[in-house]
């Protein structure tokens, strides 16, 4: 137990902090905003590429993949520094965090050069084709078919909730290549260029009704070269778990920083209102402050354990805690503000493009927005089942 980092880790923090001060583009404070999670404004592309070239984009990777072989504490402090500035590494988070990461873990050198590195250097953007209308919580129940025909696959079916697909250059799509085996077997992962004939994208609004990010993606006899297969044929489930598991020990930081930001926004908006001194509000707010600390502390515990070579087994717990804590806090703020929670807080463009969560939303809408966290990436109910069975050792239902 030590409340401070080793000196060498703090040195890395200082170095990165200085780099950010020197390289963070002025546009990061302006209102040139992305239109979706696969749309990167020019200035942000330059910034992401600069981070890659300086080895700050993915510090844990070797230099050729935008890193510096940093250890896990160093990676953490880098993310802390970005969070403190409310800056994100990429406006194409799934492209960077999942698609390119999966290709780097499971792909061939050719595939890394063709897709992974361009995605990391923001020359290409990518989206993830996983969920289907009939396969939500039951992800492995996916039914989009890919028939292998000589050196090419022919893909038919539909994906949904594909964030940013309408602005993405490529999709990482999970398809069924062998319908005759158990549902977790017979799945494969394909990279599909979005301009391939037969591929149609329909963006649609989320519940908040901001510019659409979700897409339905339809595949009608889409022809995909066999060399776009990531990993082995029918071994896609491993890629899928691998991709979801990527930067595992780090995922909690996103939840933790999101919660910290929301807490800061709550403090700002409550300041000076009667709610700020109301015992009922304070009673609940204290619990949210504790949520934020506990999430951060349990995340750090995970870093320490994985640095000691111990298993990091609390992904599901931290996701559950982070997403539900944000939901509780948003609701608390709605109830504390009363009718003022109907009004939009900060007009679009008034805040940095990084702060999409704060801008142009009433707290009521922001509350509705937190359900993306408790529904996507496995609903809270699914994660409770996972924890009960894998961590607590309860029998499967």
């Amino acid at each position: 137990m030590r409340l401070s980092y080793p000196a060498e880790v703090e040195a890395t923090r200082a170095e990165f902090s200085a780099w950010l001060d020197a390289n963070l583009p002025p546009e990061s404070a302006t209102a040139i905003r992305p239109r979706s999670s696969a749309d990167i404004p020019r200035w942000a592309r330059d910034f992401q590429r600069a981070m890659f070239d300086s080895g700050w984009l993915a510090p844990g990777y070797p230099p050729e993949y935008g890193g510096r072989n940093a250890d896990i504490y160093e990676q953490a402090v880098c993310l802390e520094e970005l969070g403190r500035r409310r800056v994100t590494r990429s406006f194409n988070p799934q492209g960077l965090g999942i698609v390119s990461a999966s290709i780097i873990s499971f792909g061939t050198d050719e595939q890394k050069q063709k897709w992974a590195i361009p995605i990391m250097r923001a020359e290409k953007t990518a989206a993830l084709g996983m969920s289907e209308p009939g396969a939500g919580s039951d992800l492995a129940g996916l039914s989009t078919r890919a028939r292998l025909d000589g050196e090419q696959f022919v893909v038919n079916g539909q994906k949904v909730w594909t964030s940013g697909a309408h602005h993405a250059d490529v999709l990482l799509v999970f398809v069924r290549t062998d319908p005759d085996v158990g549902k977790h077997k017979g799945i494969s992962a394909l990279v599909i260029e979005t301009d391939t004939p037969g591929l149609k994208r329909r963006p649609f609004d989320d519940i908040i009704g901001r510019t659409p990010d979700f897409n339905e993606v339809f595949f009608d006899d889409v022809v995909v070269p066999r060399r776009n297969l990531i990993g082995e044929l029918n071994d896609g489930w491993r890629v899928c778990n691998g991709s979801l598991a990527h930067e595992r020990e780090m995922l909690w930081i996103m939840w933790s920083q999101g919660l910290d930001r929301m807490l800061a926004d709550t403090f700002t908006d409550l300041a000076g209102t009667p709610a700020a001194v109301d015992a009922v509000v304070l009673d609940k707010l204290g619990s949210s402050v504790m949520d934020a600390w506990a999430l951060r502390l349990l995340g750090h515990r995970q870093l320490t354990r994985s640095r000691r070579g111990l298993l990091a087994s609390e992904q599901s717990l931290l996701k559950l805690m982070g997403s539900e804590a944000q939901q509780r806090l948003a609701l608390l703020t709605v109830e504390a503000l009363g009718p003022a929670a109907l009004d939009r807080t900060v007009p679009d463009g008034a805040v940095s493009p990084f702060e999409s969560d704060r801008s142009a939303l009433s707290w009521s809408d922001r509350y509705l927005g937190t359900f993306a966290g408790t529904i996507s990436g496995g609903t809270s109910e699914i994660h409770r089942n996972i924890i009960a069975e894998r961590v607590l050792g309860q029998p499967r239902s």
Partner: protein
Amino acid sequence: MEFELSEDQLELQEAVRTVLGAEAPPSLAHAISEAYETLSVETAVDRFWATLVELDWPAMALPTQVGGLGYGWVELAVVVEELGRHAAPGPFVATVTQYAQVLMEVATPVEAKRLLTQVVTGEVTGAFAMDEGAGTWDTADVAATARRDGDQLVLAGTKYHVLDGATAEQMAVVVRLDGLLRVLVVPSSALQVTEVEPIDAGVRHATVSLDGVRVPSSALVGSGDAQLGVQRALEGSVVAVAAVTLGACQRIFDIDNDYAKQRVQFGVPIGSFQAVKHKLVDMYRDIQRARALVYYAASTLAEDHPNRTLAASMAKAGAGEAQRRCVRDGLQLAGGIGYTRENDLHLFLRRAMVGELHFGSSSQHRRKVARLAMAGADGSGP
């Protein structure tokens, strides 16, 4: 006590459902919510309102002396609950359960006849400008003033979250004059009204600035302190908002309960999972609880029972607690499907959420309930 709707009331409920099923389908609410961005919703809403006027709905809860049909508060609650269950738009709630109520409590018989007859015929829609930003709808928080200047009154202050403030023809405004609480009826056109962008396009609010507005003294209704009358009117408005919220919660529950029977994951309907079952039961329980409290409150208003103040707060808090659970679990259970604007669910989530923020929060009303009950105001049971 006889605690169930009578045959006539059940028939009314059926009739109301039939009308709203036909005239206020989800497509109407969707259209308004899409159209809202272009601020051209009036036509659709006006058409809907015209239909209700034809069917004499505005007349329903108003006394026969002004041409109303003289139904009671229980009947009104039935209608308003259904409006919530259909996320119906339009001036009914503000006009009948707010504007008309304050006039019935405060205005003289002559004034009431003049002003309410226009409501009965649907010529006039009304709004009730009361809260000044605290969100309490508490007369004690009213700071807006009127100052006499000859036979005119000069107003000062700002009213917040006035339902239909930007669309109603007439507005009942609560101000302080000569140290008394008074109510003025003013044409909205005479006031500086700014509409607030709503989270539910079917429930529209405005901020109303009174500063420097001059109105003739004849705008005053009633005589003497309106304190008690405004409070009694507020009890009605509170129960009506609770009934709207209740209806929206019922619809959320209905959508989820059906969805759980149809949605198949892991080879079975999700309704066979206890996590889903138990959430549905808790929603159902909170709705039954809220409905009991809402109709009890409506009955105390109908019979002018001494528990009406306690009952109104219990109704609002009960609907608020149901809303809290139904919005949270209702959206969670529907999963991704419910997280889109194209789906109907959000229409009812939004209607339920707005209700919680109107006319005092659940917490505010719960604390009042506790104080009244400890003070023994909680009678010896029904």
